[in-house]
């Protein structure tokens, strides 16, 4: 009997009687990371990484029943050994390793290989079966070193400041925002939207130091913002407030920005290919390192990527999941935070 099955509610481990990142409410949900397409409202119990706990409590509800593990730590549930390994995707993101009677399965959630300077770097885990995303599972997606991307962002910002323009970077509150803050911190002050500031507080309180940023309030002048870096979630993109700034110019940081037509679809002034997901080469490396006999591909360019694996001697299947709505779901989460109407967002997820 396989260690995991794919059910209507999500990835299910029958032997241990729990789900990993379920999309319908269940009794016991093991959570890979805090993005809204992987963790949802309504489960009785949650098991997640120590750093993910305050994040989901902040985003979903302070009353969640959450149990936590650090990287490398484990617990046993109904005879199944559950342990967490860093996924390098965002702060607190974990690959979930399951072991039962010598059989090992790893559910990786979302992951990236490159050390982003803020998430604990990805570690490959050997296993028999591996569940992988393929958000960028086409060979056209090959990331530059993040240093090069950040150099590009910085020179864009400096140029904007020189030409009296206000640099606004669009980033999800959870993950991308902190990565930008960490890597852009320097002489230019960083101003963040309150949804990001709120999460930053949670993260700092959990023990992850972040460079200094300023919460955007009424007191901050447009002049100050023009000479700084403004980071806001996509939910704020077309707000009146943003348009009222001094010559606002927007930059989007996302892996999709690798392709010109995707850049054009966005009405941004600049696109930077900076992703929290592995690129094609990264996916292949990670998968080979697991030495898995079977690879399940959950979201992204699933059919192409799975076919490529099979043709390269790695047995693989496509699994249909509700993951990969990160853009939409994260946006909802940010929106909820922006309007401070959390209950509404919650009911939407449940129904």
């Amino acid at each position: 009997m396989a260690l995991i099955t794919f059910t209507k509610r999500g990835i299910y481990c029958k032997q241990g009687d729990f789900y990993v990142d379920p999309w319908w409410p269940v009794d016991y949900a093991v959570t890979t990371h805090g993005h809204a397409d992987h963790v949802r409202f309504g489960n009785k119990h949650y098991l997640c990484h120590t750093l993910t706990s305050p994040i989901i409590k902040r985003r979903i509800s302070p009353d969640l029943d959450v149990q936590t593990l650090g990287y490398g730590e484990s617990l046993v549930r109904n005879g199944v050994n559950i342990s967490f390994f860093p996924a390098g995707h965002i702060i607190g993101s974990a690959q979930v390793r399951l072991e039962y009677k010598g059989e090992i399965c790893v559910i990786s959630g979302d992951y990236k290989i490159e050390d982003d300077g803020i998430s604990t770097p990805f570690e490959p885990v050997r296993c028999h079966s591996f569940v992988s995303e393929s958000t960028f599972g086409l060979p056209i997606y090959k990331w530059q070193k993040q240093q090069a991307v950040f150099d590009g962002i910085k020179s864009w910002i400096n140029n904007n400041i020189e030409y009296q323009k206000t640099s606004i970077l669009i980033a999800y509150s959870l993950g991308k925002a902190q990565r930008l803050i960490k890597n852009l911190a320097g002489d230019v002050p960083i101003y963040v939207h309150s949804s990001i500031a709120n999460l930053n507080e949670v993260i700092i309180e959990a023990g992850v130091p972040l460079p200094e940023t300023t919460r955007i309030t009424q007191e901050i002048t447009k002049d100050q913002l023009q000479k700084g870096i403004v980071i806001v979630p996509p939910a704020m993109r077309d707000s009146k407030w943003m348009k009222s700034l001094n010559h606002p110019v927007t930059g989007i940081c996302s892996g999709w920005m690798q392709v010109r037509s995707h850049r054009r679809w966005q009405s941004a002034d600049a696109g930077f290919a900076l992703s929290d997901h592995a690129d094609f080469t990264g996916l292949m490396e990670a998968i080979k390192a697991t030495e898995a006999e079977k690879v399940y591909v959950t979201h992204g360019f699933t059919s192409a990527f799975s076919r490529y694996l099979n043709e390269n001697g790695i047995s693989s299947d496509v699994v249909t999941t509700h993951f990969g709505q990160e853009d939409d779901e994260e946006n909802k989460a940010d929106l909820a935070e922006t309007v401070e109407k959390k209950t509404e967002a919650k009911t939407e997820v449940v129904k």
Partner: protein
Amino acid sequence: MKRFAQLIQQLELSNKTNDKISALVDYFNEADDKDKIWVIALFTGKKPKRPIKSSLLKYWAIDIADIPEWLFTESYSNVGDLSETIALLLPPAEHQSDLHLYEWIENLQNLEGKDDETKKDFILTAWNSLETNERFIFNKLISGNFRIGISSKNLVNALAKQSGLESVQITHSIMGKWDPYVMTFSDLINGEHVNTDNSWPYPFCLAYALDTEPENLGEISNWQAEWKWDGIRGQIVKRNGELFIWSRGEELVTEQFPELHFLVDVLPDGVVIDGEILAVKDKAVLSFSTLQQRLNRKNITKKELESAPIGFFVYDLLEFEGIDFREHPLSERRKILENIIGKLDADNVLLSEVVECDSWEQLATERQKSRELNSEGIMLKKRDSHYHAGRKRGDWWKWKVNPYTVDAVMIYAQKGSGRRANFFTDYTFAVRDGENLVTIAKAYSGLTDKEIKEVNSFVNKNAIEKFGPVRTVKPELVFEIAFEGIAESKRHKAGLALRFPRILRWRKDKNASEINTLQDLQQLLQSTL
């Protein structure tokens, strides 16, 4: 090449015309003269010599990237551009190159007549010394066009700003015949190869759509009614024995329409006329789709000349005997115009007929004939009006007939931009073709905010597949699509394309089994030919 790559990036990054123009101005201030010549050439559709087939590029790229062909195809369909797909698939370059754009172009030219092995060597070495964005450009030099969202008008404006010369003069200079392999930048800009005084056009006078009942315009006798022709607005300039045809958008299109070249011998000097470029046979206007076969073609085949003959329906007179006539009243301009055009006695250059009516009701009845005549409706021009520069309310109105409509089902949705970037607002629609659905149009939302939200939540719940920002959705929502015309199209699977499609309304009362069929549209197409 790096500087050019930077320019392309700047042009692509900005949505704002001013930013694009200033990026171009910076470029023309900084770049090498020989490079500038090529940038102008490329941006105006002149292609360098291309000694290598794009299919070869593709196979070499597949080879180096070490991927199966199907994965290349899969990647290509995500990227949508061959040059870019190849640029992205290749492994990172191991060397750097400082060659100029023009040097790359010359090196490519030198490959002519060489064997495939030599060509392959050259390409592989080039790829291995160029950054991804430079490779993209390099590939474009060998195959494809530079469509980078810069109109020739913006290019002209940038050159005008940089050089301090008039923009129409530059238009004439760069639209004319010149060879980028030999022309110098300053000769080109200064129009050494042309006489720009002769070509000087006037800005077009444009009309607003009539937003009231025509009765409110007062006495019909004060108005001249004409058919509104559905072609390409054009201006014909004849001075000092030279003939120029400008299209709206300040483009010189003289070469595209040889049927009108006889005017150089029969139009008096010092005459500028405004009118519509149309497909015309036996003095009657053919459909826009017929005209379309002739647009943006550099080389016209004999067959095309026969199947889509070009004519010009004349609306107005702007210059006569070398004198600017735009301030004279329309009635006076028309009288002289009738005299000039009458003398031509041509079958394809005709006065655009005045629709004579005694009452607004009678005109409204006449207007119903528009479709039969391949016209879009009626133009109303005040008899005492001047020929204004640009759009001005009050003197000229277009009174269009109602559009065609089709019921179609939504099959793809894509996120919008600007205010609606978080909503699915760009939809692709299909009609039925037997058991299948075939795409017929893409339209931006004409829906209310409430409806957009509703469609959005439908898309979120019913997305079948996801390609980047595009979702395939269950074919369920039916919309009534309005459009202005229909044309044959080899590029579209349906074999036809709709002109100016837009969403008229959401047909919640209909389900997907009730939509129109491809056959319905084919019949409509036949009836307009």
